[in-house]
């Protein structure tokens, strides 16, 4: 125990621990809100919040169907998270993931239904369209230095209304009643459904497909791109310091455009993964789709680390499925409020890690003081301080000294 408290945490461990602490904090706050809600009711029973919270946390584990749905939800979340996170790494704030997602989804469906493409080709179409929708703000940012936040927000609405307009004018997409939405894939082109590896029937759920595998593979690919390739090096250099990158001869404009293209492509794939699952149908929508925006907390929670995004995507997917446990007890708005609070507080990971660092520092100082009191020695140089005390050998050496 002593040795553990003395140990200096590495940056990575620190990040994971602080994420977990803030998630727990978020759950606690959510729970407090549940209690508040209960108290304000006319007839309140103190046990209700406990039951609801337990249901919420265990709901996805109740049966395999619900558990599979976590992955089903997580797949596009992870992909949108990657889209946002990758742009972050280049110092760009891609608010437009939802627009890229929407058009990616719509054109994947067009390819699947009108052109009868197989799933992978439809997905590619979605990817290309998403990439194009990412290229536009990237181009304006690079060439005219127009803030990408503004262009992507505007393009979100352009994307949504373009999809609506096309859907309205493409009756061949909706020949089965009711005519207000794109027809079910299974009726029009079953080969465009994402493969289920024959597990759908085995698991007894429509929600299983290879989407999650695609998402994880792409997360790993993005990890490799960012950390092992010269392109990733350029992206990060531009993100950290555009001036220094220019100075070093990196073509910052090209890098910005490429980053937005890749970001858009990832969001486009997310659209494909959502809608080629065959479980939902594309409607004429009056509001921006939430999925692209959900990518932002997914990326933030993971500090834009591609592998961390897998975890945070799964976490938010789990919360979403768990949120169904509130249904019937609370209105759907209340469910959203509770979920948002949890996610909101989960994003405090950075603050938590800072707090942990401060505590560690204080402990170290206290030790430094007591060392000096005991032996009157000059304080140990910095490197020794963190390294020798880290290791069990260091601790042993100390106890040996004492015993002497």
């Amino acid at each position: 125990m002593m040795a553990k408290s003395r140990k200096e945490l590495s940056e990575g461990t620190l990040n994971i621990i602080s994420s977990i602490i803030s998630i727990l904090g978020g759950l606690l706050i959510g729970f407090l809100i549940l209690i508040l809600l209960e108290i304000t009711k006319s007839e309140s029973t103190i046990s209700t919040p406990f039951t609801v919270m337990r249901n919420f946390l265990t709901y996805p584990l109740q049966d395999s169907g619900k558990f599979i749905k976590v992955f089903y939800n997580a797949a596009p979340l992870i992909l949108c998270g990657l889209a946002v996170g990758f742009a972050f790494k280049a110092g760009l704030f891609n608010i437009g993931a939802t627009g890229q997602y929407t058009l990616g989804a719509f054109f994947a469906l067009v390819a699947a239904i009108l052109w009868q493409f197989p799933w992978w080709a439809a997905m590619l179409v979605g990817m290309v369209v998403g990439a194009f929708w990412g290229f536009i703000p990237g181009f304006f940012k690079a060439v005219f230095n127009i803030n990408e936040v503004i262009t992507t927000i505007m393009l979100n609405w352009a994307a949504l209304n373009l999809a609506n307009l096309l859907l309205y004018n493409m009756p061949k997409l909706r020949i089965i009643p009711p005519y207000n939405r794109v027809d079910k894939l299974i009726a029009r082109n079953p080969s465009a459904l994402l493969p289920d590896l024959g597990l759908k029937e085995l698991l007894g759920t429509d929600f299983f497909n290879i989407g999650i595998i695609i998402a994880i593979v792409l997360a790993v690919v993005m990890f490799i791109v960012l950390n092992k390739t010269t392109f990733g090096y350029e992206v990060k250099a531009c993100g950290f310091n555009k001036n220094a990158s220019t100075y070093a001869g990196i073509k910052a404009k090209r890098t910005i455009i490429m980053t937005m293209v890749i970001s858009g492509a990832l969001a486009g794939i997310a659209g494909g993964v959502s809608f080629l699952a065959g479980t939902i149908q594309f409607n004429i929508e009056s509001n921006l789709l939430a999925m692209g925006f959900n990518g932002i907390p997914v990326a933030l929670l993971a500090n834009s680390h591609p592998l961390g995004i897998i975890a945070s995507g799964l976490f938010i997917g789990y919360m979403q499925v768990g949120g169904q446990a509130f249904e019937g007890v609370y209105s759907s708005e209340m469910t959203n409020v509770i979920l948002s609070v949890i996610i909101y507080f989960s994003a405090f990971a950075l603050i938590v890690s800072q707090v942990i660092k401060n505590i560690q520092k204080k402990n170290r100082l206290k030790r430094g003081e007591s060392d000096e009191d005991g032996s009157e020695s000059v304080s140990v140089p910095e490197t020794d301080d963190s390294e020798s005390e880290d290791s069990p050998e260091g601790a042993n050496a100390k106890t040996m000294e004492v015993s002497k």
Partner: protein
Amino acid sequence: MEDYIIEMENIRKEFPGVVANDDVTLRVRRGEIHALLGENGAGKSTLMSVLFGLYRPDLGVIKKNGEVVNISNPNDANDLGIGMVHQHFKLVEVFTVLENIILGAEPTKYGFLTMAETRKKVLDLSEKFNLRVDIDAKIEDISVGMQQRVEILKMLYRENEILIFDEPTAVLTPQEIDELMKIMKELIKEGKSILFISHKLNEIMSVCDRVSVLRKGKYIGTVNVADTNTDALSEMMVGRKVETIKVTPKQIKGQSILKVENLIVPSKLHKNNAVNNVSFEVKAGEILCIAGIEGNGQSELVYGITGLEKTTSGTITLNDTDITGMSIRERNLTGMSHIPEDRHKFGLVLDFNLADNLMLKKYFQKGYHSYGFINKDRVLKHSKELIKKFDIRSGRGSYTTTRSMSGGNQQKAIIAREIDCESELLIAVQPTRGLDVGAIENIHRMLVEQRDNNKAVLLVSLELEEVFDISDRILVMYNGEFVAELNPRKTTPQEIGLYMVGSKRQPQFVKGGE
């Protein structure tokens, strides 16, 4: 008991991975000019930031007039009569001098500014201390020297009695430095106490009463200036004997490496050209130094040559290749290395580790990657070589985040990277800015070594000492044009000073006089 106005006792301040101040004690007597001397990264700025309330110390106490005080922000410091002139002035460019002086302590009546009395007060102060300022001019229109006087007036207006000057002479001309020294002596006569942060030993010797030395975050000692000399002080500061690098200027008739003809670079700040029709040559085996006061087009000239900014007209030839229209990378590969003026803005990606920064100009080259995948072993090997060769010191070697390194070592990293490119031309802009004697010695040695290896070195410097120490030839730049070409052996700092402020111009540089 001695009459101390400020005592900082056993101050300790730690940042992640660095102990910036380790048990530092500093005592300033009432009415003295006390110098704080130390290498860059020795902890001077941290100590002053603690005193000024920008950082809280981890351990230790601060006393004023013998009583323990708690300074948790600059307002507390101000209330205690502590004022500071920062190295980079904190002035609002578009406000007038007067508006800047009262900023943060505006005199009001019923919520309205009462400027008339204030104006008189400021004018009185300016007269009393002989601080010449144009009270209604905007900051952006006045000289750096006057801006500094505005900063001093700001402290006086707030009736501060302890004045901290953070490297105040770094941006001044020789004439302005003399004037500042006079002002400081004047302030002492009026009962102020001054803390003077510097690494320029001759300035310390000429105005200060006592000097405290810091080295690597530790307190080394305090001595009376009267009892010491520059050699002893520099040894205290660096921990070993330091020699000044001086070259014997050579008149080179070597091969021309860089040739600039009729170059015009537009200004981003005003309508006139920042660099106006400039021509010169740098030859192999010489250090050509461009001297001048900051903001006379030196930066833009370098941006134009290196490709960071577009030029309007003129040609640039490097190694007999016309590079005028080339991209930055093509220029670099044609044989140009560049130690930029602003090492944080351009020179380094501060959040990258040292190894990544050292490969900033190499990562795309053969051997450093295969099919786009970075060859990590090669990168680390390269980084280790440079760290060893150039003695770059850092906490965790190749894996140190560059942001956490000291200024001197950051600069060493940049120089290592640039020299490692083995370009025929090395452009060094203010390579020793903000560095201490030890680091300056090192950097000068490296530059001279390049010259002796028959490379061409273009040095842009604001420090006349540096200009005289290591240049073979001096060009003085004023208002976007060259006004003199001088031989360092045959001129004096005073003469250069006259060219720098534009009051003199050699006949061959007079317009239309050719």
